[in-house]
């Protein structure tokens, strides 16, 4: 019987582990550097790279069927939809309560200055 699962090389696994440890050090180090709004972008970029490494090699997405890959991408897509719609709600909420020419009286949402 043939093996029906990809057996990764130890070298590959150790290299990925090393990269993950280095990335952890990097993300910690860079948080001590003042970059303004870029800090969170860099931190998230490193986190995405680390997560991709874990998923691609450790979780073996690389070696799975196209169908499984499609499911993984679909999951991320749905996560994106959830975050996007949540933000579009919170971002536009304040627009609703701007005083409008037709909303002078009480009962038209909280009073704003």
């Amino acid at each position: 019987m043939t093996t029906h699962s990809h057996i990764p090389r130890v070298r590959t696994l150790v290299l990925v582990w090393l990269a993950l440890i280095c990335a952890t050090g990097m993300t910690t180090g860079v948080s001590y550097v003042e970059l303004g709004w870029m800090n969170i972008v860099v931190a998230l970029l490193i986190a995405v790279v680390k997560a991709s490494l874990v998923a691609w090699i450790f979780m073996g997405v690389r070696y799975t069927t196209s169908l499984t890959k499609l499911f993984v991408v679909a999951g991320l897509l749905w996560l994106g939809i959830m975050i996007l719609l949540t933000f579009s709600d919170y971002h536009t909420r304040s627009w609703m309560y701007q005083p409008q020419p037709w909303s002078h009286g009480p009962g038209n949402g909280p009073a704003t200055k």
Partner: protein
Amino acid sequence: MAETVVPAGTEPAVEEVHLRHHFATPAQQMDAATLGMWTFLITEVLFFGGMFASYAVYRNMYLDAFASTSQYMNVVLGGTNTAVLICSSLTMVLAVRAAQLSNRRHLILFLILTMIFGVAFLVIKGFEYHAKWVEGLVPGLHWSGYTEHPEFAYHAQILFFLYFCMTGMHALHMVVGIGLLTFLLVQAYRRVFNANYFAPVEMIGLYWHFVDIVWIFLFPLLYLIGHRR
């Protein structure tokens, strides 16, 4: 079908026992299991995603309060725990590899190592929680330690609330994971796994790596935002 590969000491028909009748081949069975596990993990992604989304909304609202409050997190312990989890992921993937190669001794060794790293993570987390309690940084129960910026007092509680929810839910997943590893260890000891049958090891491995990925995002978002601002 069950001629070679099966090591001495196991029942020769073990692989046939594990091939369910509705699958044509072990490979097909494995693909189905992998797809099912990923489907479950995607529900987990969305479960944690809800908490990450609420974190993002509140951080967006109270940027300065979150940056100031994040300095109360213990970066050394958080960073150590990140490294511990990454090591546990390596030993987990090595355990799967050992199972694929029918290497029972290495399988047991790496399962135990993974469990040790998992328990170490929880112990460190426990010390962290204890320190937060002593410092009075538990919103709703013991909140007296946040004095630096009185104007942020309310919003600081939101970050700590999110901190305990997210790391608590993550820690719960770790506890479940260690329970699953215990199950694997018993099965491995009983020589259940070999090159023809190791699906449970691989599936629980996927779960373990997923929990690692959650922490990879939790660490920068909770510990590293706005340090020494």
